[in-house]
């Protein structure tokens, strides 16, 4: 119960066998009142959502909606131990993401044939994948770009570690092998289980991160197209995205996708809106680069899940289309500069500077906060945050319109995760070591998402390179959406053993080493 960073034993908040923690943190008067006020804000967002009868109806129709009972706890998990600017940065991001998801849910249920059944609204909806870059929607300001998979699986697992288990089981009951990536597997399970809202004038699917994601879309489109009568365009982004001889193909796919949307919605592409969005994308990139620049110094400010979760949302799902995120970028940058000027630290001790590589465990997104609080390992940046920094053209000229098609294609090819899992070993293996040097890191935390074949396929070469460079590399195995395979404690144990046996260190906060959170959300 203290104002100072690192004064609490954070492990004491957990209770054996419980979904939730005993109580919230006392962070000193000012920070506690701030956190409390943001909690009130979240409660109001949720309250407004529940006020609409159709949303209540949806709550009782869709199994995955039960996970949204845990929204405030998700925020609590990511704010563990944070004070001052770090706490404010986290809230700035998380609260905005919550509002955005609430709007997404509200829109989905408004158009859903089973719930709101607002046909006029549904005719303005374009469905997209969960893990899809929405660049192709930047010039359609009057259309609603909605993802069904984002709230049903992606956000659900952030809220509740076991959210996807039911859908994974459904897919496997239908004969899907148990070794595929559980993310597209769960998304397919939602479709098979008849648990996805039905709406939209058309859908744009994309070969996003991996073979599993590509094939999972096939299951979803089967029902969408053949049963629900919603036409689907499969946007095929090239895999070898760094090669010059695939860019024309990628650009043509964007042109075809735009033409498809125009055809099925009757809405014309708006270049003015596109270039406005492009300016916002550039601004977000500029801010992200400034944060990463700070993270190269001894006083990193926007890092860990603050960087990872926000980048994931802002870069892909938003892609310049929502002005509120530009404001958030400004506020976060201001807070980061403020803390940097005061040489502030997010934990009482920084022992190691780590690059986190690979695909993070989705059911344990607050692991990065744990790394910092338990072992003093600063996750400077992570693979999913190291995305395109290319500046988009923003002036509306005939030449720039042509270039803009290539810019959208580039963004689509360089979706989060996909920009590293596809494109050859250079982007996955070689660039890691470039970042280690750039960020002056002394450790690599390598997530081994066991059913991610693109990453597993480089296992041995990662180890050999780490040995060659003399950088400690810790493998952290997990199964992305399925904590039944490796639990959160199983994830932590891998770090604990490495830190104790190889690094011969003691934890900063021993209460966090073993946590009774197996039953927790």
């Amino acid at each position, binding site marked *: 119960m203290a104002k100072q960073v690192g004064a609490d034993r954070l492990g004491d908040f957990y209770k054996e066998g*419980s*979904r*939730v*923690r*005993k*109580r*919230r943190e*006392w962070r000193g008067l000012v920070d*506690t009142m701030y956190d*409390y006020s943001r*909690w*009130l804000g979240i*409660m109001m967002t949720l309250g407004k959502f529940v006020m609409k009868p159709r949303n209540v109806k949806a*709550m*009782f*129709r869709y*199994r995955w909606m*039960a996970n949204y*009972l*845990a929204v*405030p*706890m998700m925020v*609590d998990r990511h704010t563990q131990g944070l004070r001052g600017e770090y706490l404010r940065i986290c809230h700035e991001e998380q609260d905005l993401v919550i509002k955005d998801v609430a709007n997404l849910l509200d829109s989905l249920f408004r158009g859903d044939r089973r719930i709101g059944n607002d046909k006029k609204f549904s005719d303005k909806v374009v469905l997209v994948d969960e893990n899809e870059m929405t660049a192709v929607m930047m010039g359609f300001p009057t259309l609603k770009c909605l993802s069904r998979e984002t709230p049903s699986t992606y956000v659900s697992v952030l809220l509740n570690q076991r959210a996807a288990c039911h859908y994974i089981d*459904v897919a496997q009951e*239908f004969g899907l092998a148990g070794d595929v990536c559980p993310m597209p597997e769960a998304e397919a399970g939602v*479709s*098979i*289980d*008849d*648990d996805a809202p039905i709406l939209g004038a058309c859908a744009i699917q994309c070969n996003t991160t991996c073979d599993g994601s590509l094939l999972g879309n096939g*299951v979803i489109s*089967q*029902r969408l197209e053949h049963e629900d009568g919603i036409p689907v365009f499969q946007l095929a982004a090239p895999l070898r995205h760094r090669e010059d001889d695939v860019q024309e193909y990628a650009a043509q796919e964007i042109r075809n996708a735009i033409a498809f949307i125009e055809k099925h919605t009757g809405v014309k592409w708006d270049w003015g809106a596109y270039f406005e969005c492009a300016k916002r994308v550039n601004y977000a990139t500029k801010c992200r680069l400034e944060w990463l620049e700070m993270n190269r110094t001894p006083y990193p400010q926007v890092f860990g899940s603050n960087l990872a979760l926000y980048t994931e949302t802002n870069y892909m799902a938003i892609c310049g289309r929502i002005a509120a995120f530009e404001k958030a970028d400004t506020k976060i940058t201001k807070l980061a500069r403020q803390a940097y000027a005061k040489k502030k630290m997010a934990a009482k001790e920084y022992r190691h500077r780590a690059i986190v590589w690979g695909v993070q465990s989705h059911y344990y997104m607050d692991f990065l906060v744990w790394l910092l609080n338990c072992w003093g390992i600063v996750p400077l940046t992570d693979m999913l945050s190291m995305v395109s920094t290319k500046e988009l053209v923003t002036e509306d000229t005939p030449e720039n319109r042509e270039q803009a098609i290539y810019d959208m294609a580039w963004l689509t090819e360089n979706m989060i995760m996909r920009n590293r899992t596809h494109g050859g070993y250079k982007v996955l293996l070689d660039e890691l070591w470039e970042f280690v040097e750039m960020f002056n890191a002394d450790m690599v935390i390598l997530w081994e998402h066991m059913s991610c074949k693109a990453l597993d396929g480089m296992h041995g070469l990662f180890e050999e390179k780490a040995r060659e460079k003399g950088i400690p590399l810790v493998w952290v195995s997990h199964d992305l959406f399925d904590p039944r395979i490796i639990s959160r404690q199983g994830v932590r144990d891998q770090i604990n053993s490495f830190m104790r046996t190889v690094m011969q260190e003691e934890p900063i906060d021993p209460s966090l080493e073993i946590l009774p959170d197996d039953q927790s*959300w």
Partner: protein
Amino acid sequence: MSIFLHVLKIIVIVIAILFGVTFTVYIFNLDMKLTAAIEPWLLKHYDKIDRDQHL
């Protein structure tokens, strides 16, 4: 004036009570404890819904 003060007093008392209640809920995580109790009931409900399970 006295009416104004009276109303102000009521407002302050209401705000203080609201603050007291909500802060208690906040600090003792009662919101999450309540929703954790609701969840099993909801899950049972989902199991009862007829679903058209197929590809």
